[in-house]
């Protein structure tokens, strides 16, 4: 049996392939719902599925696609999901010896799925939906660093509409043993944002929404107090800054957001917090004093 999947899988390690037999019919969920359109998707009585050392799941499924009031089409659906590849690269030190000062981790995962139709107009799903992410983490004594990336790409067949999102981030933190075990943790990210639904931005631009890049920063300082009822003080700051924002977006005040907070954590989940500013998802610039109690059901 020769196919691209087998070549890929055999390059990565032992793999198992099997035929899938069930016959199913289902309404397909369109990536972007088309008003009034119904897509019927039949999965005929054969297909391929497999797995391998690096591959958790691989499937190829022939399908018959039927759009309402339109000619049908043959199609083939596919799905490729990697096994989450996580490696603890820390030195193996036996218990009885001092614990390792350096710990390292790396992880990576990838997935792609989609549907190809012989007649593109009959394809009411995406041709490709792919995502990948990876991290590298390092602890060196009282310092921790985390590098991460994630990316997602999707494309419709025929009209070529695509959506791309990615983010790279770097986090750094430290534990200040001499300062009552205060923690300082920061995270800086560069992200490409694809705003599919953003009424404020659309109104400012007066036209279609394009993707844009922005810097994102988050910082947190945790100061254990442990005096009286006060457990700790948390100081937080978040900032979002769009890169090369259009003048209309700048004029509407949609290019920069910041939110600062101070939270006094009391005993048993009670807290008093003060926040000032707004976030891209909650833009109303405000000053709010919160007093409350947090818990999880079952606690």
């Amino acid at each position, binding site marked *: 049996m020769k196919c691209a999947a087998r070549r890929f899988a055999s390059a990565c390690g032992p793999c198992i392939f099997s035929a899938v037999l069930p016959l199913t019919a289902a309404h397909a969920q369109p990536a972007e719902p088309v008003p009034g359109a119904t897509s019927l998707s039949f999965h005929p009585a054969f297909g391929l599925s497999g797995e391998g050392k690096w591959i958790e799941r691989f499937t190829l499924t022939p399908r018959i696609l039927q759009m309402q009031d339109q000619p049908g089409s043959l199609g083939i659906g596919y799905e490729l999901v990697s096994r989450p590849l996580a490696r603890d690269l820390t030195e193996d030190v036996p*218990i009885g010896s001092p614990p390792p000062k350096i710990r390292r981790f790396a992880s990576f995962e990838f997935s792609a799925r989609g549907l190809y139709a012989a007649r593109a107009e009959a394809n009411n799903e995406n041709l490709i939906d792919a995502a990948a992410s990876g991290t590298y983490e390092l602890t060196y004594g009282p310092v921790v660093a985390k590098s991460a990336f994630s990316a997602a790409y999707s494309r419709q067949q025929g009209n070529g509409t695509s959506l791309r999102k990615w983010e790279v981030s770097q986090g750094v933190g430290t534990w200040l043993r001499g300062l*009552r075990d205060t923690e300082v943790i920061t995270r800086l990210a560069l992200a490409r944002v694809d705003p599919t639904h953003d009424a404020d931005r659309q109104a400012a631009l007066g036209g279609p929404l394009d993707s844009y890049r922005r810097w994102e920063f988050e910082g947190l300082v945790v100061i254990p107090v442990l005096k009286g009822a006060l*457990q700790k003080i948390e100081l937080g700051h978040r900032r979002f800054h769009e890169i090369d924002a259009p003048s209309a977006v700048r004029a509407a005040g949609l290019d920069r957001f910041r939110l600062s907070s101070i939270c006094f954590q009391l005993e048993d989940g009670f807290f008093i917090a003060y926040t000032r500013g707004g976030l891209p998802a909650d833009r109303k610039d405000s000053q709010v004093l919160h007093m409350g109690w947090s818990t999880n059901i079952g606690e």
Partner: protein
Amino acid sequence: MAFEWKQNLACGSAYKVLEALHQFNASKLSFERAADVKLRRLTYFPASTSSEDILRMSAMLLVQQYAQLLDRFYVLRPHGAGTWKDLMADMQAVLEDGDNTIAVLASTVDEYIRFQDER
């Protein structure tokens, strides 16, 4: 055998190390009550952000400090072939879930470490 919270080094070490790392106020939290305290109530667990990255880094820092103090305060021998790498990875997973309790953390450590009061 189910882990039991009692006055021994496995449980006492968890209480003492977390207290030494300013994770709770010992004058307000007795040893007996500590077993069922959720980890989200400890100071390392972020209360004002839901960022998983921040929580992950905070837990990584605590694991490192916890292991250093454990080694400094106690004479440690392994249960079987477990290593620090495995123990710290398991502690990391426990600390990232705020619904775990201090007793869960203690039992995780006890799976790897034979304290002096254990045969």
